[in-house]
């Protein structure tokens, strides 16, 4: 697979380490009363779709960016690549 890094251009997937589904960006509120359940779901339950999935990839042998890669698990086609920091900031409604 080739990952089109937003800053560095196309890079071989073997330069990266993968963590899992991008829902890991959406850490639940630890102070909420249902934190035990929401953290369980956040940590463990996965959509694991046969089709498009958003995943976190780390550019170990590169610029050490975490990326959100949107990829088809049936074909391995990569359709979008974003900096995880931008996605996380959007998710939190913050400006970086």
């Amino acid at each position, binding site marked *: 697979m080739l990952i089109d890094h937003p800053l560095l251009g196309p890079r071989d997937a073997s330069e990266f380490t993968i963590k899992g589904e991008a829902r890991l960006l959406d850490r639940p509120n630890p102070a909420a009363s249902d934190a035990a359940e929401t953290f369980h779901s956040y940590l463990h339950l*996965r*959509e*694991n779709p046969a089709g498009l999935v958003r995943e976190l990839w780390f550019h170990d042998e590169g610029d050490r960016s975490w990326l959100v890669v949107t990829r088809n*698990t049936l074909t391995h086609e990569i359709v979008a690549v974003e900096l995880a920091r931008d996605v996380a900031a959007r998710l939190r409604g913050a400006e970086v």
Partner: protein
Amino acid sequence: MTRKVVSMRYSALEILKQGLRGNLHWPRMWRTPELKPGYDVVIVGGGGHGLATAHYLAQLHGVTNVAVLEKGWIGGGNVGRNTTMIRSNYLLPGNQPFYEMSLKLWEGLEQDLNYNAMVSQRGILNLCHSDAQRDGFIRRGNAMLLSGAGAEFWEPERIRSFLPMIDFDNARFPIRGGLWQPRAGTVRHDAVAWGFARAADGAGVDIIQNCEVTGFTTEAGRCTGVETTRGPVRADKVAICVAGSSSRVMAKAGLQLPITSHALQACVTEGLKPFLPCIVTFGAGHFYVCQSDKGGLVFGGDIDGYASYAQRGGLATIEDVCEGGMAVMPAIGRARILRTWGGLVDMSMDGSPFIDRTEIPGLYFNGGWCYGGFKATPGSGFAYAHLLATDESLPEASAFRLDRFATGAVIDEKGMGAQSNLH
């Protein structure tokens, strides 16, 4: 309603008789029955685990009004594309007794099924390359002894004399010893599915190929059957057993699982005269190997790391595995890889499987076997049949609960935490 189907008993004499008749009068190994409107138990998935479950339901619990629904052809998943190894060399109390039970079932399988799946207890040697790794193996070996699985620790000299092809003189990571389980071995993998299918079919179980489950029917919150490409089927109990498709199938029931599906590659070389007397695993890289009865070196390594349903992997993994192979056993350099293939493995969040009820009454789940499902085949079927028949977990499989992540009672052999691709 049970129906006993007379099945031919296989023997050398029968082979001779049939051979003289041109081998044209062998009976079918399993029937091609019509799907009935309802069953006591519908097993979704005609792989090794599903067929074993059907066999043990019939044989041990007298439950024979059973259908096994298979999307494609039976034995086409894990049981048809693994690296054929069986062992019970686990560490944790949640795992080790289960795998030891499974190994004992393997040891009696041929007699039980009247089918020779060629269980060959050639032994497994896990090589270690550091003091810390050795200490870990000794802890594990002692756990194996405590569960009656048998284990030995081999010093380097013994390994060198038993396996002269291993590189002791020029290794980047010297070999400090190895954990040996003599009862581990290899099995002719496809035959396991066929043997269980033949036995289950003989007891009256309906094996329905080319029948895909497309949904579940529920009444008042209880699962009452499945929708299939061949129409609806009622069932008192629906047992899911669809490694590689667990998340996809359970999503139809509205359930999310602590599972991610990954590609696991394996390789086989051209046939070679006997070279390797046992299974060997390399402790400083990703490589394990055995030699099949046909002579091919069967080997593999780690999963590719990214979620995949494509049933293929990348070159980088093959390269990594072969580097491991050449590091530990440089005499295999001239053996040629004949085929590589990628299977789907359902990696759970702690590397251990599930055999459990779900939150939907009537719906049961067996899955998350990671890359270790093959060796578990008889044990999994035995434990799942017990759960389906009695609604109680078999003690040896009682840790394989779906709620263990919520409670924290995880079974994390490698200590890698809640990341499926690290187990």
